[in-house]
């Protein structure tokens, strides 16, 4: 892949800025804990264990980085519960419809955009 030093520098700077922002604005890791089971983020990062499924929501970003460190990059691609699989398919369908609607608006096909909006609203209702 082509290596662009300017792009890399830009990314490094963005990373540094994010880190500085996180350090000054985000809650300190010591203070983050799961309200349901009281497991702290530090406990989780030290042991790899959580106390309940809600911990994964509370520590979501850290849990994802930790999981990718342990297993390698890449989210779940295995079996999914049927209701979750249906939800995931509908989410993808929603994304496609939104893109299609944007395209219809760009080419000023307002009838198509109106029809797509109706489909999007229906799908959003189903996903609630």
């Amino acid at each position: 892949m082509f290596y662009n030093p300017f792009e890399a520098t830009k990314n490094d700077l963005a990373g540094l800025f994010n880190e500085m922002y996180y350090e000054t604005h985000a809650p300190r890791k010591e203070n983050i804990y799961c309200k349901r089971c009281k497991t702290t983020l530090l406990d989780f990062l030290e042991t790899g264990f959580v106390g309940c499924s809600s911990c994964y929501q509370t520590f979501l970003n850290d849990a994802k980085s930790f999981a990718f460190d342990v297993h390698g990059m890449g989210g779940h691609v295995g079996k999914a519960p049927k209701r979750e699989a249906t939800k995931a398919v509908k989410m993808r369908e929603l994304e496609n419809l939104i893109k299609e609607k944007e395209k219809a608006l760009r080419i000023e096909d307002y009838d198509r955009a109106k029809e797509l909006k109706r489909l999007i609203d229906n799908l959003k209702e189903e996903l609630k």
Partner: protein
Amino acid sequence: MMDVNSVVISSRIRLARSLKNYVFPSCLVGEEGYKVIKEVADVVTNLDGEYKVFTMERLPALDAEVMQEKHLISSNLLNNKASGAVILSDDETISIMVNEEDHIRAQCFMKGLSLGVAYETLNKIDDALIENLDIAYDDTLGFLNSCITNVGTGMRASVMLFLPALTLSNQMNSVINNLSNQRLTVRGVFGEGSEAQGYLYQVSNARSLGVTEKDIINKVIQSTLKLCELELEARKLLVQNNDVELKDRVFRAWGVLTNAYTLSADEFMKCAGEVKIGIALGFIKLKDNSLIDKLLFDALPSSLTQLAGQEVLGEKEEKMFRAKFISTTLKSARIK
């Protein structure tokens, strides 16, 4: 054709699942543990086939230890008297541990290299559990479990392998390194690392996220077949270069197993490994070659105590009973 069965003893698939509505087993208190057992047992006992539910609280200590020796339950579950339970199929090929490290640890055991069949069997039970229970799941992290090492598919596919020639030719350390580079874990079935007793090793996947169940099974199968090839090649070389020493080793061990007056579990395991080499290479013929694999588990302390029809066996009595049991069984099974 490659004789895979002289290397691969058994296959096991394990799926870890957790319930959304309960805190994980390490945090469960009071009646919650029983509620989890009831929810899981209600689903499993309504499936086709016969299943029995045993709570650790009520299971007699010896029965629990025998289950642990047979790898049907873990020591972690055995020690969870407060809320641990196991649901076993009649033929003991399916074991579902409840409130072990995770709410559900479902396992399927099969003889030989049968990971695909084991998964198919367990997957049907898993479908029923997912359909009927509120299982914790996230689109990116997959099935959510107590430990980050078990998210994603929550699956471990493992095979138990008999690798005497690779061990005797000092190749196990490089095999273990090679497999760990491929994110596979190797450990002794009885004992650790390259010093595994009875030359028995367990190989399993380390990665459970970012891969499909099929990927995991294929990877373990491919690596197992490669290990079989290496082991069989190493056996050929051993016979070519050390035929006399090898036969001496096998028949000395046979002599101990069929003549000793007392036999410790350790000594039995060591000798059984040597005799198994003799069976694999055709020096010793038994009516049923898998008998020695069964004995490996039957001769463990608690299983042996149960076989003797006793509640407890003293150390000396245990060694004497083991020696007699092994000697009688092997002598009557041998084809001259």
